[in-house]
């Protein structure tokens, strides 16, 4: 980072002066108002002073003095009105206010001279007040103005002295108890009187000394003000940059998709750098070609540019080798590198930095501006930081994309494997059906029975393949689980409709229910449905006629819902409990009821329960019935993971 505590470099001088001028004009603007406010006190003070001194018995030209007070009031009102108006004119505000300030000081001086004239001229005690104006001038007006006002004060007094001596103007003495309140000995008429000249000389000297003394103080003060304002600006800028970097980080974290990441990145950066445009160019795998991947603020035709060959572009090569490239005035030759499109876009400043991840350069981040000399050291520093983040984001998004593709490929592969295993079986079963249904001639009982067996084995195999495919998908992690809120009430309804016929056909009492106000669970709808279908199907299968199968839902403990499938079926023998969820396992009593079965149903149920972060409990008594209880987490918020 640039060290802002050092003094300015010579080359920065013009910039610094402009800066200072800008800051100080801001101060003048404020000062002018303050002047006007202060001046409201003057006419009443003069009025009160006049009344008071009169009461004390001092004789002086009260009327003219009061007129001067009125005059001060008048021009203060005028200045106030102009000042108000000037503030509304945003553009010329500064010049107008500076003009008003000069006008005020000028008028003040004029009023001062009048007052002094009416209170004894060179002998007036008001002479001392000139110092105020010197102080104000040196504080609020450009350096040198104080000397100017000192000169005016001295010159003006000389003129008044000369005027009184030559009789051009009347002398207004201030008389107290018969004595003229003079700083000299009534000898204003006598120019040779030693006291007038030294007095004026000391007065003039004191004015200039005041100006001289104020100047370095004010210079220092001004410098401090300017420094402070500059620091403040720098701080604001750094803050903005930090915020931008933070937004970048957040934006990066919120999306894995490369195109979204690139869009967000270019947008955020363009907001901070306030330039014309931002570009991201990415290197091809072999490192030979550089292609635009994202743009902001530049014509979108760029994206259609064919890739630039790195070997043929020394500028790009330099950046890829690690060196940032900054220029404030793009020359025609450089323009050519960028292409006609950039030239047409009137870019004058560019800034390129490499995008690096772990020593690998993956591309170039670029900023463009139509103004000259837009990018300075601090911009380069910030841009490099940003580039670091952007590079990580791109790398991340690419990795994620690669994984997604892999997952998709595997998923597709699994599906085709399943298809190829199932197609022949489906064909076999179709042919069998044609035979069994008598389309090719009547069958005797033995033939029927044989065909029935064939059909069963074939269907069984189909079921096993289905089960294995399901398991394989879950275990390989090729399955993407969509987590959405699931309403148990409607799920129970669906399950009921699915198995109603079968249950009734077996003469079973069958119920599926869930209370209306039960909270929704979080999970993959298809998987949850399959899990419950397996359990209900089992219950129906292993419950003899006249029994009961019931599915109920309720609130479970620790933020779960409890789904219970109970039956009055054959139950699960104790020995079988430990193997219940193992692949291909079937308890002996189950085999007695149903000769054939996949033995995968409960395995799949367990997989799904585990995947959803729930747990499953079994309670059973052989010959009496079984209860399966599945606990699944409640949906805490809407939306997908």
């Amino acid at each position, binding site marked *: 980072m640039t060290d802002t505590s050092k003094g300015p470099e010579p080359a920065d001088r013009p910039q610094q002066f402009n800066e200072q001028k800008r800051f100080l004009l801001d101060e003048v603007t404020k000062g002018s108002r303050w002047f006007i406010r202060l001046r409201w006190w003057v006419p009443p003070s003069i009025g009160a002073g006049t009344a008071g001194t009169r009461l004390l018995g001092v004789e002086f030209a009260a009327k003219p003095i009061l007129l001067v007070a009125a005059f001060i009031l008048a021009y203060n009102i005028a200045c106030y009105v102009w000042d108000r108006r000037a503030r509304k004119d945003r553009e010329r505000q500064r010049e107008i206010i500076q003009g008003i300030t000069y006008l005020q000081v000028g008028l003040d001086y004029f009023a001062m001279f009048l007052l002094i004239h009416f209170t004894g001229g060179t002998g007036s005690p008001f002479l001392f007040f000139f110092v105020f104006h010197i102080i104000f001038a040196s504080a609020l007006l450009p350096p040198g103005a104080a000397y100017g006002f000192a000169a005016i004060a001295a010159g003006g007094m000389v003129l008044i002295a000369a005027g009184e001596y030559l009789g051009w103007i009347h002398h207004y003495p201030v008389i107290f108890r018969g004595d003229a309140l003079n700083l000299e000995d009534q000898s204003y008429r006598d120019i040779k009187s030693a006291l007038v000249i030294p007095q004026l000389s000391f007065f003039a000297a004191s004015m200039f000394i005041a100006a001289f003394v104020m100047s370095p103080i004010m210079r220092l003060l001004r410098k401090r003000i300017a420094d402070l304002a500059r620091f403040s600006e720098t701080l604001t800028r750094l803050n903005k940059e930090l915020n931008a970097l933070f937004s970048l980080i957040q934006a990066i974290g919120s999306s894995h998709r490369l195109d979204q990441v690139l869009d967000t990145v270019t947008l955020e950066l363009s907001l901070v750098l306030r330039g014309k445009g931002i570009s991201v160019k990415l290197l091809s795998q072999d490192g030979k070609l550089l292609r635009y991947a994202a743009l902001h603020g530049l014509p979108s035709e760029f994206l259609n540019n064919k890739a630039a060959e790195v070997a043929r572009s020394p500028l790009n090569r330099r950046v890829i080798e690690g060196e940032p490239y900054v220029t404030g005035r793009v020359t025609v030759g450089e323009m050519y590198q960028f292409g006609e499109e950039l030239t047409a876009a009137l870019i004058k400043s560019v800034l390129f930095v490499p995008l690096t991840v772990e020593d690998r350069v993956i591309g170039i981040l670029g900023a463009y501006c139509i103004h000259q000399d837009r990018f300075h050291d601090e911009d380069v520093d910030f841009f490099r930081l940003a580039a670091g983040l952007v590079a990580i984001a791109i790398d991340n998004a690419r990795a994620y994309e690669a994984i997604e593709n892999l997952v998709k490929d595997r998923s*597709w592969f699994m599906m085709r494997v*399943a*298809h190829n295993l*199932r*197609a022949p079986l489906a064909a076999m079963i*179709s*042919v069998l059906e*044609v035979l069994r*249904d008598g389309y090719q001639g009547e069958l005797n009982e033995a033939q029927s029975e044989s065909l029935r067996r064939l059909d069963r084995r074939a269907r069984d195999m189909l079921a096993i393949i289905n089960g294995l495919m399901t398991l394989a998908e879950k275990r390989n992690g090729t399955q993407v689980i969509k987590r959405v809120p699931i309403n148990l009430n409607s799920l129970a309804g669906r399950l009921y409709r699915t198995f109603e016929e079968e249950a009734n056909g077996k003469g079973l009492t069958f119920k599926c229910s869930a209370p209306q106000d039960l909270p929704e669970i979080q999970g993959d709808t298809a998987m949850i449905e399959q899990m419950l279908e397996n359990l209900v199907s089992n219950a129906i299968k292993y419950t003899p006629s006249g029994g009961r199968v019931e599915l109920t839902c309720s609130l479970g403990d620790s933020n779960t819902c409890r789904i219970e499938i109970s039956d009055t079926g054959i139950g699960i023998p104790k020995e079988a409990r430990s193997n219940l969820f193992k692949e291909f396992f079937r308890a002996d009593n189950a085999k007695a009821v149903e000769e054939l079965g996949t033995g995968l149903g409960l395995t799949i149920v367990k997989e799904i329960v585990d995947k959803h972060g729930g747990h499953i409990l079994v309670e059973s008594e052989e010959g009496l019935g079984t209860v399966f209880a599945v606990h699944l987490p409640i949906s805490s918020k809407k939306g997908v993971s």
Partner: protein
Amino acid sequence: MASKGKILLVDDDPDIRDSLRIVLEGNGYTVQAAGNGREALAALEAQVPDLMLLDIMMATDTEGFDLAFELKNQPKFENLPIIILTSFLGKVREEGPEQYQHIMGEQWPAKWLFEKPVDTKKLLAKIQGILGGG
């Protein structure tokens, strides 16, 4: 005996084609069979059937879908009822290509999808329902 209707059966598996043909013809329908998309289109051009049974995965993974999609875009076949046959009900339901959802109308993926091995009784009932009415 008059035919109850003309059915075009598209499936790349010869055993499925023959079995279904036997069942359908045995129930009074006239059946023409095609083994791939190209043959199917030729048959369609020659004569518009009353109903089409369409397998999804044939030579390519989405050949059936592609064909149905193409047909739906042609006014001549706009009202042709299509019953999809698939060995893959679950997958098709979950991941049926979005661009083909519309070929089933609002009925995707419910009634007009049959999983192989086909339950012929249900299939016959469905066909009866579609064609029987008129």
